[in-house]
């Protein structure tokens, strides 16, 4: 077509891309769809079920007809995808080619494949279901994704945006709303799905006006997001997808100017390439300079189609007939009539004819019974339909709005919106250019006023706009019939899912007679158009069939997302909050295998777990235990506070002493364990397990708030790093780094000391989880690497080795030290876990779980936690079943390892209480094999604790 003002393409440029291997030349500003259409392509895709040819329909990204794959990414709408140099565009859902699709055979088999046929057909014989499933899965679906992808290649982003007002829709009304609100001082974001602002103005001759409005909006400070569809409205959060960014917009007020969706009509052949919405043709013509056809028949329910006819004629396209569903000609028709165009009032289209493309339209009077004998077949290569408008209300109903059927206009109009939502423009029924503008400005003022902005002048202006709106003439529209019965052929109610009018009738006959049931049975409204094209037609069909009113039939729930969005955009950028100790970098340099441990990254081993464990027994080892939970509990009542929380006593702990504590729930079950150190009269330093730190902190805070004691709590888990220096040579090594007297007499087992180690202020605890002489050294996290290096350096002559989590697990197992959560579960009490000494029922102070523990003491559990050994070298699986004497499952293995030091397999298990005696034989059922083991009730290594205390 010759250049036209307002077109989007830049004819001085050229862009090349390929479609199914064929080179296509386009202009900057073209979409893949417009370029292909200009190059003569009419079939863009094959339909979902029947593999029928489908061509451009809406040219606005609202139907399923132009889905293609671009550079391997399926499900892209050709009509909105901008052309890109070198892009590889391919058709989807047709094999071997778009022109010859073997699966088109399903179209001929249509009568035998109604909705639900495969539920009924493939149920028998049941054993063949896997084969059926394979076939069905390969036949179903649109597009293909790569089976594997090593790395995520598309970087997507979330962006949180708070605003005073969010305007969704950048047409005439939306722009006016945004400007009005921003000019009154509101912080406004405007999101529009189009690449350019202006909506209908752009292809209906108002492009200059649109440009001016956009400039005004920018000047008023409106943040404008284009090519940015709003996906949903979740409790005030509106996600807007724009390229690689998902804007999460939270606004105080929402203005929806989402427009209306031009509706197709239901008639046989309504899916043939060449049957298009009138708006689609106008977009091709006005925006991309593409001639949509040579001879067009127009069928319309409003002046929209009439304006299209005028525009086509101006562009030199022949219009042999216009079927206007309205009984009387409108004022707009006079121009057409004066040009000699046949305008048939009260007529509609009853069939489109053609094989690959439209060749003719069959027109007939709308009124039932009148069609016989009056049909008129008109040759054409384009049938442009405009079956009325349906407000794009999905986001508004998600926001809490309500719709009701408007019988005069034949659609579901917005009847009610929540107080922080305003609707404007076509979606609010203000579709004419004049009213869209007024209602837009009014909506913007209303939004600003709701936020407390504006003044008397703006309020006066709002009043004036209201009066003008009340007086406006909105023109006449016809309500199209659900369908006009006519010749045989598929009349599609839903193009996405290939649901015909007949399918809806059949669904109703089978009892799916509510719109929601019908949706689930036929899948109508469940495809890529999300009901834009099929909701209203299917409701009309249902009403016609059931005799209900459209109001009674109602609509389906509008669920997110309203627009197609790649999953990658929803996923956003990966965030993986990984806690790393201050020594983490050094561990990596030392060759540690790092694994997740709770929310921490921890060294599992340094390549030789057995050797690392042996070093602890023979010389010394150093492990990073910074992940332990660490709490400061401080105040005059701190001792009593801990006495209330733990089943043993802490108030009588002397400053400089450490005590083990197991935390129990109200039910007396083990929650966590760790140490309590009294650092001075008022202050206790509590350690917890690594994974339990957060829960214990919350538990303490919760009870502190409840009891209101004069105690302060500070979580210093991340502020304080800790290492455990353990092994027979650890004392010598430590002595080289500190002035502290480390002799057994001056610093004995379960003592705590303040000292500088390598110049760093430290709290040293003489405790030993790993069963050898050891020192847990706590210090400010900022010195992690320095202190670690200093200790390893000081121990170099003693063959000190760093050791990881795995050797630590072996070492603690040798001592039968439990790991809470691994060796215990939600039913374990300290009595069952062989720790009755950790409970002081004679304590005068009431404590959490006291009643339950007293009960447990009187009613011993049926199982008990014990150690065991296995002689044959087999290491049972953790979780393997322990059998009782009758061969019934009666317990389970919680930990098991092979110990190099002990040269045997050791473990811990819950066993029947009667077997919890040293030497008792037990049977372990592990992956189908029975293994004999013996019970060991005291630590495997250093049972007397001599080494630990040395």
């Amino acid at each position: 077509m010759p250049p036209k003002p307002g077109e989007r393409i830049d004819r001085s440029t050229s862009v090349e891309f390929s479609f199914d291997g064929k080179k296509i030349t386009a202009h900057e500003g073209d979409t893949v769809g417009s370029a292909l259409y200009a190059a003569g392509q009419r079939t863009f895709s094959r339909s979902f079920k029947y593999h029928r040819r489908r061509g451009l329909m809406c040219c606005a990204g609202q139907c399923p007809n132009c889905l293609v794959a671009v550079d391997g990414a399926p499900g892209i709408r050709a009509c909105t995808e901008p052309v890109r140099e070198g892009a590889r565009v391919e058709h989807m859902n047709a094999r071997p080619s778009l022109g010859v699709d073997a699966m088109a055979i399903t179209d001929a088999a249509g009568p035998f494949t109604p909705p639900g046929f495969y539920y009924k057909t493939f149920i028998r014989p049941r054993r063949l279901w896997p084969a059926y499933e394979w076939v069905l899965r390969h036949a179903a679906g649109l597009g293909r994704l790569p089976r594997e992808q090593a790395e995520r290649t598309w970087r997507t982003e979330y962006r949180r945006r708070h605003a005073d007002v969010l305007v969704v829709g950048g047409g005439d009304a939306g722009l006016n709303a945004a400007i009005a609100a921003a000019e009154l001082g509101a912080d406004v974001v405007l999101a529009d799905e189009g690449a350019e602002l202006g909506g209908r103005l752009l292809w209906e001759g108002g492009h200059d006006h649109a440009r001016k409005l956009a400039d005004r909006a920018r000047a008023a400070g409106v943040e404008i997001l284009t090519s940015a569809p709003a996906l949903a409205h979740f409790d005030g959060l509106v996600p807007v997808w724009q390229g690689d960014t998902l804007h999460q917009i939270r606004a105080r007020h929402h203005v929806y100017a989402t427009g209306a969706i031009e509706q197709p009509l239901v008639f046989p052949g309504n899916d043939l390439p060449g049957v298009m919405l009138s708006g689609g043709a106008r977009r091709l013509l006005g925006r991309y300079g593409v001639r949509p056809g040579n001879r067009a028949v127009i069928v319309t329910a409003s002046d929209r189609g009439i304006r299209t006819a005028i525009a086509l004629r101006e562009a030199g396209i022949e219009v042999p007939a216009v079927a206007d569903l309205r009984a009387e000609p409108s004022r707009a028709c006079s121009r057409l009539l004066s040009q000699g165009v046949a305008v048939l009032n009260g007529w509609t289209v009853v069939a489109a004819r053609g094989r690959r493309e439209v060749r003719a339209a069959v027109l007939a009077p709308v009124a039932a019974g009148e069609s016989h004998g009056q049909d008129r077949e008109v040759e054409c290569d384009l049938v442009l339909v405009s079956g009325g408008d349906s407000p794009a209300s999905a986001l508004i109903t998600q926001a809490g709005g309500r719709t009701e059927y408007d019988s005069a206009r034949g659609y579901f109009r917005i009847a009610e919106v929540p107080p922080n939502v305003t609707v404007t423009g076509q979606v609010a029924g203000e579709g004419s250019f004049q009213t869209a503008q007024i209602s837009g400005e009014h909506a913007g003022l209303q939004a600003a006023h709701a936020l407390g902005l504006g003044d008397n002048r703006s309020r006066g202006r709002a009043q004036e706009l209201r009066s003008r709106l009340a007086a406006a003439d909105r023109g006449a529209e016809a309500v199209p019939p659900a369908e006009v019965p006519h010749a045989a052929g598929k009349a599609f109610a839903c193009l996405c899912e290939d649901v015909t009018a007949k399918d809806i009738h059949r669904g109703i006959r089978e009892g799916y007679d509510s719109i929601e049931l019908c949706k689930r049975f036929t899948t109508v409204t469940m495809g890529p158009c999300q009901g834009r094209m099929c909701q209203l037609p299917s409701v009309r069909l249902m009403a016609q069939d059931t005799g209900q009113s459209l109001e009674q039939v109602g609509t389906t729930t509008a669920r997110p997302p309203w627009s197609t969005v790649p999953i990658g955009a929803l996923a956003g950028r990966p965030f993986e909050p990984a806690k790393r100790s201050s020594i983490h970098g050094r561990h990596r340099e030392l060759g540690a295998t790092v694994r997740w441990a709770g929310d921490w990254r921890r060294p599992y081993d340094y390549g030789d777990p057995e050797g690392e464990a042996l070093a602890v027994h023979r010389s010394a080892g150093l492990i990073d235990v910074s992940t332990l939970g660490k709490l400061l509990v401080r105040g005059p009542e701190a001792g009593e506070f801990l006495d209330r929380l733990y089943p043993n006593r802490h108030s009588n702990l002397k400053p400089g002493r450490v005590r083990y504590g197991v935390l129990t729930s109200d039910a007396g079950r083990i929650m966590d364990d760790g140490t309590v150190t009294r650092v001075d009269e008022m202050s206790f330093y509590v350690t917890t397990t690594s994974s339990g730190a957060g829960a214990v902190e919350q538990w303490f805070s919760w009870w502190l708030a409840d009891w209101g004691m004069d105690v302060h709590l500070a979580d210093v888990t991340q502020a304080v790093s800790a290492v455990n220096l353990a092994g027979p040579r650890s004392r010598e090594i430590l002595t080289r780094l500190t002035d502290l007297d480390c002799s057994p007499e001056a610093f004995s087992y379960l003592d705590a000391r303040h000292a500088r180690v390598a110049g760093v202020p430290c709290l040293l605890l003489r405790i030993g989880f790993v069963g050898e002489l050891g020192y847990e050294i706590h210090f400010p996290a900022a010195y992690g690497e320095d202190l670690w290096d200093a200790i390893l350096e000081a121990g170099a002559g003693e063959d000190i080795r760093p050791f990881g989590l795995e050797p630590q697990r072996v070492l603690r197992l040798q001592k039968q030290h439990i790991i809470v959560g691994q060796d215990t579960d939600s039913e374990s009490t300290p009595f069952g876990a062989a720790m009755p000494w950790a409970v002081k029922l004679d304590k005068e102070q009431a404590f959490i779980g006291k009643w339950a523990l007293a009960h447990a003491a009187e009613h011993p559990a049926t199982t008990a936690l014990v150690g065991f050994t296995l002689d044959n070298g087999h290491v049972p699986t953790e979780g393997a079943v322990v059998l009782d004497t009758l061969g019934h499952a009666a317990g389970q293995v919680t930990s098991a390892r092979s110990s190099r030091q002990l040269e045997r397999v050791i473990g811990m298990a819950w066993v029947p209480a009667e077997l919890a005696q040293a030497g008792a034989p037990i049977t372990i059922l592990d992956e189908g094999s029975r293994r004999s083991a013996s019970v060991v009730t005291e630590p495997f290594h250093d049972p007397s604790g001599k080494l630990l205390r040395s």
Partner: protein
Amino acid sequence: MSLDFTVPVASSEERTARSPMERLARAAGASFERRDGWNVAAGYGGDASVEAARITDTVGFCDRSALTKLDIQARAEVLADLVARVAGGLELEPGRASRSPDGSTWWCPITPTRLLVLSEPRSGWDVHTALDGAASAAGEQLVTIADVSCGLAALTLAGPGAGELLSRFCAIDVRPGVTPVAAFRPGSVARTPGYVLREGADRLLILVGWALGAYLWEVVADAAGHLGGGPVGTDALAAAGGGLSATAAGVAEGSADA
């Protein structure tokens, strides 16, 4: 003091306090100097104008984990009295930090009975000592001063794109009308608990757990790179002004780059 083991003050010159972001800053080209006992990323490469331009034109991020951070707990009136003694009559208002009259310290109320105090390491010790003194004067009243300098990693976003950068990983509304200068907001930062303090019109200080410092750097660096920003050293940040008054960043004590 029995809680010494939480305070990052080493007696040996050999020991250097290090930020959890140090390795990442080094990988990004930072040059380090030992200042006030900390290894500080003073700058990135030779051309200081690049860092300055980030702060004026796009967005820069700067590791400020060396800040002294004190977590003070006491009854509301005791806390107010304590602050009055140490910093004059500052108002403690939830959600709003106060800068001490000499500009050296931010006093950030977390709850009516809990306060986070932030200062440059150079003045941090003095603040700590003054608070200890004031706490003693509180007599029988329980006051707990926990040094959490190593409990919270800190990063400043500076430049006109600071808010935009924050929006890529945090939902806190930092529009100036909602979060004006000195506003202090607890919230989720990059899916982890944290605080945001608006230090200046174009300057946001983020605090998260120390062990998540490296993670925060990775998140911020990734997003900043996407927006045309990058890391800046403490020198560039100090030169831009607007931070705590001791941001002169101390006197270099020699290179600790090794």
